[in-house]
């Protein structure tokens, strides 16, 4: 592990190569010292046209869902594809971002590192909450299958095997050790990524903490547009999500 943190931002996208180039240029303009890894969920033909230095094609059908919670979309294929790259590059931290997440400030990674350090955490995520025995619909849906709770009981290193956490996959920030450990898991059933990622990290013994002040800027049920950038930035936002189609349009830097 290097003494100076080296952050890899994993940009998960299926957009055109031109949009990917615009997106990567913007991310690098905000934080030149980071490594960008494009995790591509589009077609193999478009993937072949990508010009970025670090790219991986994710062919896992569990990523390519339409109704993500009902089909229990998984990011384990993304993790598995990315891990060889971050291992080779000696990355210390991983920021898992989606194409519709847009950084609004310079030095984003320094802020994310500061949160992780302040919280003494291994993983930080948005909308993190404990959901076992609650009305959370993803929990109530998954626990209908006994294999779901049995899986956590079988793999947990903790005393309490019944804890289930939920967080957004988008915008989560990981120590590489935790990211790699989760990537090695092969649950016997498909688990929606918003439950799988934080709960797996927790039961592997990692400390998972929230980004409480930033959640409102990342709420997936509230679509945003470029008109929101400046008000959000003034309100303290580091990133904004979801902004659909932003990189597909010809645009100036936000």
């Amino acid at each position, binding site marked *: 592990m290097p003494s100076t943190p080296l952050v890899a931002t994993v940009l998960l996208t299926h957009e055109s190569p031109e949009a990917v180039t615009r997106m990567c240029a913007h991310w690098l303009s905000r934080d030149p010292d980071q490594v960008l890894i494009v995790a591509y969920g589009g077609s193999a033909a478009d993937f072949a046209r990508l010009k970025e230095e670090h790219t991986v094609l994710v062919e896992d059908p569990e990523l390519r869902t339409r109704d993500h919670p009902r089909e229990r979309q998984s990011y384990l294929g993304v993790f598995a594809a990315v891990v060889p790259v971050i291992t080779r590059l000696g990355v210390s931290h991983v920021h898992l971002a989606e194409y519709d997440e847009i950084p609004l400030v310079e030095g984003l990674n320094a802020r994310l590192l500061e949160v992780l350090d302040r919280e*003494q955490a*291994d993983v930080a995520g948005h909308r*993190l*909450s*404990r*959901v*076992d*025995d*609650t*009305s*959370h619909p993803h*929990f109530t849906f998954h626990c209908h299958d006994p294999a779901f709770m049995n899986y956590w009981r079988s793999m947990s*290193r*903790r005393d309490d095997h019944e*804890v289930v*956490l*939920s967080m957004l996959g988008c915008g989560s920030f990981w120590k590489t050790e935790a990211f790699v450990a989760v990537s090695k898991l092969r649950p016997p059933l498909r688990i929606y990524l918003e439950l799988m990622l*934080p709960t797996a990290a*927790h039961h*592997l*013994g*990692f*400390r*998972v*903490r*929230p980004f*409480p002040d930033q959640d409102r800027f990342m709420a997936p049920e509230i679509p945003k547009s470029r008109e929101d950038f400046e008000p959000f930035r003034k309100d303290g936002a580091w990133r904004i999500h979801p902004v659909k189609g932003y990189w597909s349009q010809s645009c100036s830097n936000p």
Partner: protein
Amino acid sequence: MRALLRQLGVFLIRKLGSPIRDEVTGELVGRALMVVWRGRIHVIGFTGACPLKPMFCSQEKIHYWRQAVGFTRPESPDFPRHRSE
């Protein structure tokens, strides 16, 4: 059409739904229609953002004939690291 129906549902629940308070803090966390059907309480159209955790409410005087079920919110996860270094 689906979005319109959803907006209509949310509007009705905001007007007609029962207020749901956190039984621990007393804070209003949202509204929902509460329907009891076949021995289950159905929470319909909850307008809040947090997951709800059901709990039996405490009572000032003892009542053998009536108990109330309310809701609270789970605590924010704050578990220590649990790995051998």
